[in-house]
């Protein structure tokens, strides 16, 4: 019961935040709505017993990415932009795309659970320690993606320094 309540509460937070993000005029307000939305996502993670991901979501998104966004917003001083027209002229494309995805969603809702067949639960159930589960699999089976992720970070370091830094 509590579960249901929390789900709808977090879902409202997620969707409300998201809607405000894409509609608000002031970019700083958009960023703050985004934080709300992402926090809601973190709550959703928690409901699904993904505690580790919950922590990551808070640390990385709310603590990291959003700060970055705010820095950039201040760096490029978006106030002038906020006074202008807010939406571009791609309405038709947007409506078509949204309708297509929406129709798909309606189709699945109407056809009910029959349309969905989920993968059968695996033989071993998740243990209580979410982080241990992740760690065991990450550092054995997902060894290569993990190591290669460091290259991804390096690319990001070189790329952002190269792009943002002004050569002396």
């Amino acid at each position, binding site marked *: 019961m*509590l*579960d249901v*309540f*929390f789900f709808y509460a977090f879902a409202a937070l997620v969707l409300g935040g998201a809607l405000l993000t894409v509609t608000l005029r002031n970019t700083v307000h958009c960023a703050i709505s985004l934080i709300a939305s992402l926090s809601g996502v973190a709550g959703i993670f*928690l*409901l*699904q*017993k993904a505690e*580790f991901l919950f*922590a*990551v979501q808070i*640390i*990385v998104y709310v*603590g*990291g*990415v959003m*700060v*970055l966004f705010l*820095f*950039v917003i*201040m*760096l*490029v*001083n978006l*106030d*002038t932009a906020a006074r202008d027209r807010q939406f571009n002229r791609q309405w038709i494309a947007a409506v078509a795309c949204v309708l297509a995805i929406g129709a798909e969603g309606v189709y699945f809702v109407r056809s009910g659970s029959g349309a969905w067949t989920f993968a059968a639960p695996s033989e071993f159930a998740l243990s209580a*320690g979410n*982080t*241990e589960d*992740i*760690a*065991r699999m*990450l*550092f054995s089976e997902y*060894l290569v993606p*993990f*190591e290669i*992720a*460091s*290259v991804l*970070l*390096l690319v*990001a*370091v*070189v790329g*952002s*320094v190269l792009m*943002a*830094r*002004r050569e*002396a």
Partner: protein
Amino acid sequence: MPTTAAETYFPVLVQALLAIVIAAALVSLSFLLGRKVKNSVKDMPYECGIVPTGDARHRFSVKFYLVGMLFILFDIEAIFLYPWAVVYKELKMFGFFEMFTFILLVVAGFFYIWKKGVLDWSHNDPSALRSPAGRVEMRDHHPEEILVAMKR
């Protein structure tokens, strides 16, 4: 034994709610009960605070962005480190080498940043953005101004 995540974290929620209520109550009480005086001295920095110069909206140095960016990149490194630490004992030496390789590459990135001088704040901010819309006008706050404001 709680069965769902929501029940597990119910105490946490109660605590969070409590914190919010207390904080909100304190702020709103002082707002409701306190005496309101509005003059420019009230808007001045308190005691030894620095007198603000310029517009609050004036541009940040790109250095803030760079440092922020570095922070979250190493943040990612940290989130990989955390589960590793949890199972470190099981992984033994293999786990050590695994993480060593990972960290080595990230440290190479750090070295690069260091040598590039991104962390060097001492120079006269060569990486500041040039202001496209003309310089923001800097206003000086003279002591007389403050005195005049106080008299009002």
